[in-house]
């Protein structure tokens, strides 16, 4: 994680309700201009934390600092919030609605009108300005709601499950808009259950479980931390098992069968390409690589290995000794899906 002063610091926040503790000494740092993923099972306390950051509710203990200063009510003008439970006035024209919400966030009437025009044009909903929410399709409503979230040019944007309710085409539009906002300097906080979102967009994450932060940090660093020294070898020639210090990894979590193999990502191969190989989740873990020739003899095989002892060099030496011609070696790091499940399981009391 960067050493620069955080844009938003959540410091030892505690929130208790009469019969349970929703947040227990939660601390987070959001770095300016980055996308922060807030993960956690349902009921972990994510919504409570988001509400505290939005100053909808106050913490019982702890502090929130925005650019080093304690968060004040005026700072709500700098924040945009897209709640998980979407909602707008059903019987109000969407244009008026957007204008109203922008004014509540501190925009002048003129500024608000201009921003409404800008965003509605940009999201291609300009023609619907005089329609009421109840007349719009679900996807259209989502776009309006997103526009309402960012109209007032917030520099801290909090999105709770931003992609839920969007079809793939609009989800892509939304993703690009979010990345644009980030490029323009906004800091974003996502709460999400979608690990693809985390992997594609987040630079930092925190995983909250049972009211506590059980894992946090920069995404690349976390994946390194969770590496179990599994490698994907592309090679010609047969692997002779057993090999000293190496085991054939059981397919990840194959005991539970819950996690498909495709959740494992290679560091170098773009995930989409990797996924396309359709590694069977059971049976042989040796498949034909995309580049394989039809010629059986020179078929390039893929083998997953996990080092239980020794170094990667030992493995390479072994391959040379076995006359296995290696084409490539890639480390396979776990995806956030697996990290999530593993962390949550391990932190069960």
């Amino acid at each position: 994680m960067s050493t620069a002063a955080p844009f938003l610091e959540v410091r030892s926040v505690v929130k208790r309700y009469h019969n349970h503790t929703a947040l227990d000494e939660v601390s987070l740092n959001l770095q300016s201009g980055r996308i922060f993923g807030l993960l956690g099972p349902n009921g972990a306390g994510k919504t409570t934390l988001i509400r505290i950051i939005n100053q909808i509710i106050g913490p019982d203990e702890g502090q929130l600092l925005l650019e080093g200063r304690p968060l004040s009510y005026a700072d709500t003008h700098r924040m945009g919030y897209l709640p998980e439970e979407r909602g707008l006035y059903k019987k109000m024209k969407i244009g008026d609605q957007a204008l109203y919400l922008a004014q509540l966030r501190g925009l002048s009437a003129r500024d608000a009108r201009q921003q409404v025009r800008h965003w509605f044009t940009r999201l291609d909903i300009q023609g619907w300005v005089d329609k009421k929410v109840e007349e719009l399709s679900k996807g259209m409503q989502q776009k309006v709601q997103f526009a309402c979230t960012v109209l007032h040019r917030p520099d801290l944007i909090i999105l709770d499950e931003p992609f839920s309710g969007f079809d793939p085409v609009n989800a892509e539009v939304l993703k690009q808009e979010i990345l644009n906002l980030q490029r323009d300097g906004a800091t974003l906080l996502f709460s999400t259950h979608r690990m693809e979102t985390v992997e594609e967009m987040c630079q930092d994450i925190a995983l909250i479980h049972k009211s506590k932060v059980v894992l946090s940090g920069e995404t690349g660093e976390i994946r390194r931390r969770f590496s179990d020294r599994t490698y994907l070898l592309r090679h010609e020639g047969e692997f002779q098992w057993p090999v000293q210090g190496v085991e054939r990894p059981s397919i990840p979590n194959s005991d539970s069968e819950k996690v498909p193999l495709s959740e494992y990502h290679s560091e170098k191969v773009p995930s989409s390409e990797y996924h396309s190989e359709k590694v069977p989740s059971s049976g042989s873990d040796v498949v034909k690589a995309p580049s394989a020739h039809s010629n059986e003899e020179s078929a390039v095989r893929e083998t997953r290995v996990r080092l239980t002892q020794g170094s990667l060099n030992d493995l390479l030496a072994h391959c040379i000794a076995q006359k296995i011609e290696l084409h490539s070696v890639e480390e396979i790091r776990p995806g956030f899906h697996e990290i999530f499940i593993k962390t949550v399981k391990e932190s069960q009391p």
Partner: protein
Amino acid sequence: MSKAGWVAQREFMVRVRSRQFIIMTLLGPFLFSLMFVIPALLARYGGSDKQTIWVHDASGLFAGAFQTEGEVVFREFDRQPDGWRDSLKSGKDLGFLLIDPAIDLNKPTGFRYYSDQPPGVATSDRITRAISDRIQALKLKQRGLDPGFVDSLRTNIDLQTLRLTGEGEENSSTGAATVVGFMAAFIMYLFIFLYGSMVVRGVVEEKASRVMEVLVASVRPFDLMLGKILGIAAVGLAQFVVWIALTSGLVALAQATILGGTEATSAQMAGSSPDGFEGIMLGLGTLNLPFLLSMFLFYFISGYLLYAALFAAIGSAVDNESDTQQLMFPVTIPIILAIIVAQMVVQNPGSPLSFWFSMIPLTAPILMAVRLPFGVPAWELALSMSLMVVGFLATTWIAARIYRVGVLMYGKKPTFKELLKWITYKV
């Protein structure tokens, strides 16, 4: 503009522009003016209540006792006609009064009245009065007294009611005070319910549509609640102003055209006793109207604010409109109680009951509306008004505490007890 101001503006604009508001605002005066015009028209052109009562007096004691008056025509006949029962079946507005031949003046029985429909109170009253008057006269004659002399003993006193105030005596009119007081109380009751439930619906709508979460991220719950209450108050005032202006305009128009002349309408409006109505109209002159109006306005506004805050709290506690009824019930009890007590207060405006109920802020607006036209001591008024201010500040505070918890709560409908518990929650 403050955020509560923006909220109030939206509440006002959205409601005033709604089709429902426009229709109600324009239709209301038509309905109200019809309430004035129809009775007047009916009295003028509609079927009269004319009724013919045939009296067969076999005793011969009641000759001339039944005087035709107004719509009821008495006809005496000597013998019982054969077909009278049949004519009763076919005839409308027809009655037969049969008096037995032997009437014991000390124990008078044997008066029978036949008609196709049970007689109205006015008709049966008139008949019994005529009979008892004649019996009284007959008894007086038996004792050798002149009925005319006894009549002269009856004296009609017109009691002039005066009220002693610091500045001297003032005329007061009980009739006018009663009418004005009840009207003001009723309008207050209507306003509190009509616009109070509009507040409930507005809050529930925000919660049900989930726009609440976005709103409370930009506006403090208290500002949101206050803005809504004030915005709806403005809607109510606007509607009332339009109603009053249009209604009086329409009534004036009706008088000028279809009814022709003020006198007729006023008289008809008051029903069968034009004297009473005129008395009230004259009595109005004795009331200090500008003072009364400003007092009404004060109780009107403070009473609305007091209840609207409670209604907002109730709206915040539930997820959908159908759940509001049960929670609204405890809040409506004081309003209904006030209307009941108001009847007693009119009988005795200075009683301890009147005093205490006009001090309690929950009942004061309606009770004071009733009492004010009768005159309320200055210190009582001052105390009641101060309590009213304290009262609405208190309910607003309590409501805001419940509201800020309620707006974030979804799921189970809370009980009234749980709502009270929310007051102490930390958010």
